[in-house]
Structure formats: C-alpha cells, structure tokens
C-alpha cells in the first residue's frame, strides 16, 4: 500500500464491521489483478449497506474477504477488516472457522449451486448449527433446523426438512439459504445478489423477509446487488464500486437523489423505471468495464466518462481523484474531479432521464 488513503470520516467505534484500506490482489498468468483497491467502509448493527457495481467491480471479492473465503496462500490481502472488534486479516483457518457462519454469515446468489445436492436440506442446516454448538444433540439440531425453516416461511417445515434442494422451488431454496445463514444468529449477514435469479414477486417476498429478520435479530446487513431499486428500498447507506475502487459512498437517500459521480449517473440513466416519464431517455454508459490487468490511468472511469470535457486539462486521465466529501456535507464521499457535480447532474443528466423530476429538484434546492 503506497497510496495515501482517506479513511471515511464517519467511522465510529460501535460499527460492527469496519473495513479499512482493503486491497485484494490475485496473481494470474497474465500478471497480478488488483480486484479491490483501497476500500474502506463500515456497517453498524441494525444497519444495511448496499454495495452496487457491475460484474468485475470487486463487490463480491471484497465481501468474500470479510469471511476469509479467498485462498490465503495465493491471494494478497492488505488493510484491515474488523468483525466485532476482531481482526480478520492474518487470522488462521481455525480462528476463521469460529467466525464464519457464527458471527458472520453469507447468503449466495445461486442457491441451487450453494446447497449440496446430495444432502437433505435439514441435514445441511443442522450441520451449520452443530459446528458452532458442539454440545447440541442431533435432535436439538433438527429441531432448530425446522424452527428456522418455519421462521423463513417454508410451509410444512417438519416435512420439507427432509427434502433435497432440487425438490424446493427457486424462492424456497433462497429461503433455505437464508435460514442456514441465520441459524447461529449472526451479527453480520452478507447477502451476495440474494434475489438476482428470482422473479419480482418472489424477490419482494425475500426482501421483506430479510428486513423482518434484520429487525428481529438486529444484525448488520450488507446487500450486494446491481439493482439500484433494491438498494433504494433496502439500504441505509450505499457504496458504489467501479474497477475495484469505491467511487461514491453516502447515505442512501442522499446518494440516489443527489449523486455526484458520473458513473452513478450512468447507472441511474441506463436503467428504465416503471414509473418514469415516457419521454425519459435510456442513456447507456458507452464502452465496456476495464480489464483489471491493465487498469486505465488516472480515474479508472475516464475512458467511459462523458463529462471529462468539464474538467480542466487532462486531469481525469493523469490523476486518480481522491475519495473526498463533495459539496453536500462530509458524509457523502465521491471520487471525481468535477467541481460542480450537483449542478451538472441537475442541469444535464436529470433533464434527460427524468424530465418530470427537474422542477421538483430545483424547488427542493431553493
């Protein structure tokens, strides 16, 4: 780590998960790939952080590092990850096992692939319980498994507990995964694209369930997704990632209504909205995400950015912008050279993507 980092100004000590200056690097035959670069964030108990980004932006890699799921021999991880005050980086496998599934758990995207096809759902849940409760009997573990299946809304849990994963529907498998993640009452739950493979009606059920459970267990939750709509409804804070770096970080409402980074604008303008004005344009982000083998110089978004002409000189191509507070308070951080992003957003971007919103926003600011 040679770069100077700007730790988020809002880190406070009661946050359950604190990630500081996390960098994850994988060696590949073509050279090292820095999948996560100088990432800092924190989540408090009862809080939800949404991490947004395209595939390959490092959102999954960073959260897998929190559970120590990378190959420790090959992967170079630097920085600091503290779960409930305990440092994760450098922890040996046996120490990691005590945390994994116990105080921190993960829900994966593809439940069919994440559940073992040869074992009954109940047996897989019971195993997760017994590992962290060695004194529990088989009967206790089974009872706990049934209780959790019931809690996540699977009908007839005492019968379904003996089913195999393929006998469950997509939504039920995701529920079973959530039950497994929560069986040890973890304080930190990481949901990696928990609803991407599901239909909207089932997605709504699963999101409702996650929210109810969070309220009940008061856990810290990280939701990794590419769907800004999910983030808008679920998250308290949002972190936008691009090419391994955090490019914007702030409270959900603030960030989505007054985004200050052109990549976030691009994400907002490239998805249609069910309630949008039909005169709204769907403006894509040109080009493709960069290869992390050879990341662009300066700001990694500059080759796809449509607003570089508003920055003097070739600053975007030469200098990496720092993650600094923008014009809207210290809790909203952005990594961009634009001097007046709020103004550019309201004047240029909003006029195209939500013509009906322009007046509201200007009233709001007056």
């Amino acid at each position, binding site marked *: 780590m040679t770069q100077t980092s700007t730790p988020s100004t809002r880190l406070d000590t009661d946050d359950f998960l604190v990630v500081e200056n996390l960098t994850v690097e994988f060696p590949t035959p073509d050279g090292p790939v820095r999948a996560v670069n100088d990432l800092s964030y924190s989540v408090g108990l009862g809080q939800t952080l949404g991490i947004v980004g395209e595939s390959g932006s490092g959102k999954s890699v960073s959260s897998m590092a929190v559970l120590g799921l990378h190959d420790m021999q090959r992967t170079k991880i630097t920085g600091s990850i503290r779960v409930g005050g305990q440092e994760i980086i450098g922890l040996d496998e046996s120490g990691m096992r005590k945390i994994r599934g116990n105080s921190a758990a993960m829900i994966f995207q593809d439940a069919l692939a994440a559940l073992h096809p040869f074992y009954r759902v109940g047996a897989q849940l019971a195993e997760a319980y017994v590992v962290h409760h060695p004194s529990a009997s088989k009967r206790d573990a089974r009872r706990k498994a049934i209780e959790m299946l019931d809690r996540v809304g699977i009908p007839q849990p005492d019968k379904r507990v003996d089913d195999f994963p393929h006998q469950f529907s997509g939504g039920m498998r995701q529920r079973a995964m959530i039950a497994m993640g929560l069986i040890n009452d973890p304080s930190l739950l990481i949901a990696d694209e928990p609803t991407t493979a599901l239909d909207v009606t089932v997605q709504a059920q699963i999101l409702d369930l996650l929210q109810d459970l969070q309220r009940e267990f008061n856990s810290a939750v990280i939701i990794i997704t590419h769907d800004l709509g999910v983030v808008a409804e679920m998250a308290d804070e949002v972190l936008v990632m691009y090419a391994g770096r955090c490019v914007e970080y702030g409270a959900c409402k603030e960030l989505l209504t007054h985004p200050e980074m052109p990549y976030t604008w691009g994400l907002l303008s490239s998805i249609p909205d069910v309630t949008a004005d039909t005169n709204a344009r*769907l403006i894509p982000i040109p080009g493709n995400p960069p290869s992390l083998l050879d990341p662009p110089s300066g700001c990694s978004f500059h080759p796809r950015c449509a607003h570089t002409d508003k920055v003097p000189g070739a600053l975007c191509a030469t200098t990496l912008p720092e993650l600094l507070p923008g014009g809207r308070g210290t809790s909203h951080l952005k990594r961009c050279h634009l001097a007046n992003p709020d103004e550019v957003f309201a004047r240029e971007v909003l006029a195209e993507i939500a013509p009906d919103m322009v007046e509201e926003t200007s009233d709001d600011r007056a």
Partner: protein
Amino acid sequence: MTERDATRDELVPEEQTTLEPEPVLVPEVPSFDKLAEQANTATELDLSRGSVLEVDNLKMYFPVKSGGLIRRKIGDVQAVDGISFEVQHGGSLGLVGESGCGKSTTGRLITRLYTPTGGRILFEDKDMAEMSNRELKPMRRQVQMIFQDPYTSLNPRHTVGSIIGAPLEVHKVVPKDKILPRVQELLEVVGLNPEHYNRYPNEFSGGQRQRIGIARALTLNPRLLVADEPVSALDVSIQAQVINLLQDIQKEFDVAFLFIAHDLAVVRHFCPEIAVMYLGKIVEIGDRDSIYGNAHHPYTQALLSAVPDIKQAAIGGRRERIRLQGDVPSPINPPSGCRFRTRCPIAQEICAKHEPPLLQIGKRHKVACHFPGPIGHHPDTPVTAPLLGTDAYGSPDPGATPSPAITNKPGYDDTWFDLDAKTLGRA
C-alpha cells in the same frame, strides 16, 4: 461500396489494424449531450399499419409420461393454453410474467421451434401453425429469434463470420462470394468492428456476443423478431446499450418485436403494448398506459407493486405492496376456474367455478378477471356473471343466457364492456 466504406469510417474510427488485443466498442466517448441525443425514449405505438402477426387461441401441451417400462401418458403440462394477441407492423408487444408462465414457450411456438397443440399463428395472413418444415423454410426468413444467453447460443467452434453468414448460406439469398461483405455490413449495424469477422465468440464480452446474436437474427431481413429475454444476462450499463440498439434497428429496418422479458421496467420502455401472462394464460393485455397506469387485474397490480423503485430512496423504507403468497401452482394440474385464484387477494366463490373471459374494458385494454378494477376499487359482485349466464356465486342462473360477446380472438373491438354501467357497448 464507397458509400458503405464511408459509414464504416464513421462507426469505427481508428483501429483498422487487425490484431489489437481486445475488441474495443467505441474508442472515444462523445460528450454527454451527444450520448443523450443518440439514446432513445420509450417506443410509441403506431396503429396505422395493421398487424403483422396474429395469434389465435394458441395452445401447447407437453405430455407427461409415467415412469417404468411402458411409459404411458399420464397428463399434460399446459404450458400455453389458449392465448390470442396481435403484433403491429413495426411495433412491439411485450410478454411478461413469472418464470414458468409460458412466455418463452410462446416465443418458441411463434418461431415454430415447437409445433403447437392447437390454435393458429397467422403471419401476414398465412397460418404457420400446421406448416411442414418444407413450407416453413421461406417463413423462417421472416421470423427470427434473439436468445437470452449470449454464451450458449453461439457455437464456440464457429467464427463470428460463419455464425452470422450461416442463414445466408442456408437460404441461398446471396452468392457465396457476397456473404462476407453482407456479414461485415451487419457487424457494422450492430456496432462491432467489421474486421472481427474471423474471431471466435469467446473473444467477445457478453454485450458484444449479444450483438452478434442480434446480427445473426437480422441477416435475412426478418419482419418479426422474437427476443427472448435479450438483455437479462447482461450488466446494467450494457443492457441500456443493447436496448438502444434494438430500438435503432426497429426504426431503421422496420422490424416488429415480440419482446419476452421479466423486467417490467425494460418492457415498459421498449414496448407500447404489453401482455401479462400467468400459468399459460393471458390475464391482462393492453397498451402501456392501460397496463402500467391503470391495471385492472390483481396479478398485474401485484407484479407492478413488487418492482423495487429507485424513487423510493427519496421517501425511505419499503413501498406498500400487494404480497402474493406462495409459488406459482403446477401447470400439470392447474387450479379450476381462474388459475390465479389460489394466490389472489380478492378471489371469491365464482373464481373457482368459472374461468374469467378476457374481456375488453377499454379501447386497447383487455382483462381476464371476474372483479376487474383499480387497486382498492375492485367491484363487490362479479361483473362477468351476467355475461357467463350465472349468479354472483357462479351457479347457473336459469333466467340468464351466456353472452355471445365473449370470444377469445386477437385484436380489439370498437365496442367494449363499460365497467361503470356494467353493459357492453361503448365506443
């Protein structure tokens, strides 16, 4: 030739060298105003030119066989059960619904990848439903398909040139030596570098592969494209590129689209007309305003309320939504009467006894529900009972006769059922 060379220079500046490591899409980013100008707004409905495709009471049943030595047929999966709709010339109809509702099967029926169990598929007044393969061959030039998964729908052992050129060879539309120029022209149309015709699919990213799939579908100048979830496998920022490309193609080549997707927001942007399917049936069909602004079927309302909304960020918390319980029932043994009644918040006795007819309730709006109405304003008595000749509980009413107005034909009538007056006939 000179003309085309000029356009090529425009689309692909620089990089005429053949061996750069990564295929690059657009090397230089235009300013934001230019980007916005190139982007499209939601597609508008144009009714002046009539329909290109009419689907009438289309059915597809897949047999379910028993296990054991003698595999007898023990039932049917009623994947598509009597659906009717039409697609306008150069227009687009969106088909939405949960997985397993039969929307992909419908797409595969219209491209005749399956032979339907019953019903008619009228493409420019010719019925494709019962054509033999030989009769179908010329029709296949008119109807092409774009597949969902850009990774499995391209043969990894064929070059992009032979993938896109294959339809030309099969249909013998151009002489062999003219195939390559046509392939390069198509690559340009979809925004790829024409020099890349001899590359293999694995050298391209997901979004670029989807462009190759689109180029292949365009090869024969089809009149109708069936796009089965064309963007759902792509990243968010790439989705918008492909949707804009499809809109450009629609305008430039005058192709009609049957657009199958589960993303209601994308469908709203791309399609001026939408059909909502549930368990093999169309439950509501209409133009964009009718479906998104004035949905009358409880299932459509539930689907729409389940979509997460970015604007919610300004308000905070979750939106009030209609929660549907459970999963879609099995299409092998669908519920009696209305198929949605097992999950419907407003179901009554009549729903189990009679299947609601697809009733026209607006100029371009049809709904299949006994209690159609806006959210919170569903009527207390079934509006369909007098038409079906029953009382409010679905028992036969000796004094009433079923109305001949109930049909299941594609398109819309000039008169329709007035929900306020509860009578037929308002123009």
